[in-house]
């Protein structure tokens, strides 16, 4: 079963991506629209698929993959199934960066991508502060330093909200923070994909360290792993993944925490084998949630981050309950 997990999840990703391209207020032939768009033929189907649905689908897949992968990496590093990718501080840092753009109107030249750019810078600054504070980057210190920086960035974000120049700016900021992949274009992917590739590579190269850490830091070090360097690289990769996804899509809760939980039994609980399946499952889950957002009755659209939290929280409670019964 463990060997089939990744191929099955990748098939699910393809299926959900097709469903996402097919879902919307207008019925459009997906394959014909895709073909027209790729060939540069100016048709209605090409416009709907290429300009609206494809960016939304690719963004939801990329954001989900980033969150799923970062959750699996961070839980492996901290040896804690409750570790959330937001613990690195990058998530709140990105939110703060974007909020400052809404408040001060920075980077006007970047246009629509200004919040994303500021979000990336905010995530980078939070990461730098966290690593400086953690010093040796020992996993136990990372969690404390990440919490401290998250709290600081959260407090700064609350201050920005408190002194919002007008109710519209505050509303725009709050809606952005709730998390969504709608109204974004392929240019947003240009921000996300390099960060996703670099963060993913950094994490993937440390998969042996994550396996060794299963038996504790002492065992990992006795097996020749340099914990300080490896931990820093995993934290850096995780922060890049989370920071960039929050910068693009706002806060999408529970994916990074929940997806590794769901996938872990399918890969025999091995932290090194958890990475890619978690990325695939995260991609499929966020994309599916975005399809659900579009399928809900018309009116005020529920935000993607709200839906993932609404669905994720009960699922998480059920998982905790199941685990609790196992130990009783």
């Amino acid at each position, binding site marked *: 079963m463990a060997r089939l997990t990744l191929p099955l999840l990748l098939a699910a990703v393809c299926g959900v991506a097709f469903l996402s391209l097919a879902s919307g207020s207008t019925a459009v032939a997906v394959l014909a629209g895709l073909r027209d768009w790729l060939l540069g033929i100016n048709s209605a189907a090409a416009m709907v698929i290429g300009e609206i649905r494809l960016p939304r689908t690719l963004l939801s897949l990329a954001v989900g993959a980033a969150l799923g992968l970062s959750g699996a990496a961070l839980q492996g590093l901290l040896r804690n199934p409750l570790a959330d990718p937001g613990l690195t501080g990058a998530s709140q840092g990105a939110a703060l960066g974007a909020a400052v753009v809404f408040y001060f109107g920075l980077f006007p030249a970047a246009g629509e991508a200004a919040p994303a750019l500021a979000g990336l810078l905010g995530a980078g600054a939070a990461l730098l502060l966290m690593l400086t504070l953690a010093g040796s980057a020992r996993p136990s210190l990372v969690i404390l330093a990440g919490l401290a920086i998250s709290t600081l960035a959260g407090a700064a974000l609350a201050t920005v909200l408190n002194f919002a120049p007008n109710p519209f700016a505050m509303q725009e900021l709050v809606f952005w923070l709730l998390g969504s992949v709608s109204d974004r274009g392929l240019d947003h992917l240009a921000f996300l994909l390099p960060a996703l590739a670099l963060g993913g590579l950094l994490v993937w190269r440390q998969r*042996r360290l994550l396996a060794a850490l299963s*038996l504790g830091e002492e065992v990992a070090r006795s097996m020749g792993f340099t914990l300080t360097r490896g931990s820093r690289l995993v934290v850096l990769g995780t922060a890049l993944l989370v920071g960039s996804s929050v910068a693009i899509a706002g806060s999408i809760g529970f994916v990074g925490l929940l997806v590794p939980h769901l996938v872990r039994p399918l890969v025999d609980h091995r932290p090194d084998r958890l990475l890619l399946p978690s990325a695939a499952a995260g991609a499929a889950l966020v994309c599916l949630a975005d399809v659900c957002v579009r399928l809900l009755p018309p009116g005020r659209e529920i935000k993607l981050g709200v839906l993932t939290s609404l669905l994720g929280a009960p699922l998480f409670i059920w998982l905790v309950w199941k685990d609790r019964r196992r130990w009783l």
Partner: protein
Amino acid sequence: MALIDVRGLDLPPRLAGVSFSLEAGEMLGVIGPNGSGKSTLLHCLAGLLPCRGGIDFDGRPADALPPRQRARSIGLLPQTCDSAWSLSVEDVVALGRLPWDDRDEGAMRLAMQQTGVEAFRHRKVDHLSGGERARVWLARVLAGRPRLLLADEPIASLDLYHQRSVMETLRRYADAGNGVVIAIHDFSLAARYCDRLCLMHGGRLDAFGTPAEVLTENRLTRVFRVPVHVDLAARPPVITTQ
């Protein structure tokens, strides 16, 4: 040439001027009261603590070995071990091959046979008893086929049967031409299975030699501050407090 040659190992205030050497095929028991530096010594040998002094492994300075090479040559079984995840026995044993970056089925099977865990290789470690788990941790180190095996109190939580079983496994491993250093509190088992003993006291080497040379009533009474009765002529040797 000695398998490991330790000269003037210093790590203030935990270790001071410890020197000894161990030949291939020998099993060395490290004994001493709590806090005397047994675990610190093992951690220094494994390269986990930055200590002063010289450690030569197989005629080469151990510090000059790249971490991966050192991990292939020197395996450490820590005093406490736990798996964060619900891994199978087989997957835990496979972790012992990480320094080699392979999954040598032959080495893994042999390690599982030596420790008697092959029968439950597909079970999850968190579903095993304490004794079974202790043997799985040992199998993990044995799977790496280290030339020098450092075991920090591997029989501390085991019943009599499993204590003997683990000591016999380590003895056989040493007899195969490897070195074994074991921190141990049971003097009778140490006298029975070890070629040499190293008595630690306050971070210093109080005595080093054969069990007969180290385990004297006067010395043990002085170091452990309780009257000790020693009868090494008995089979098995008897060392108890009076």
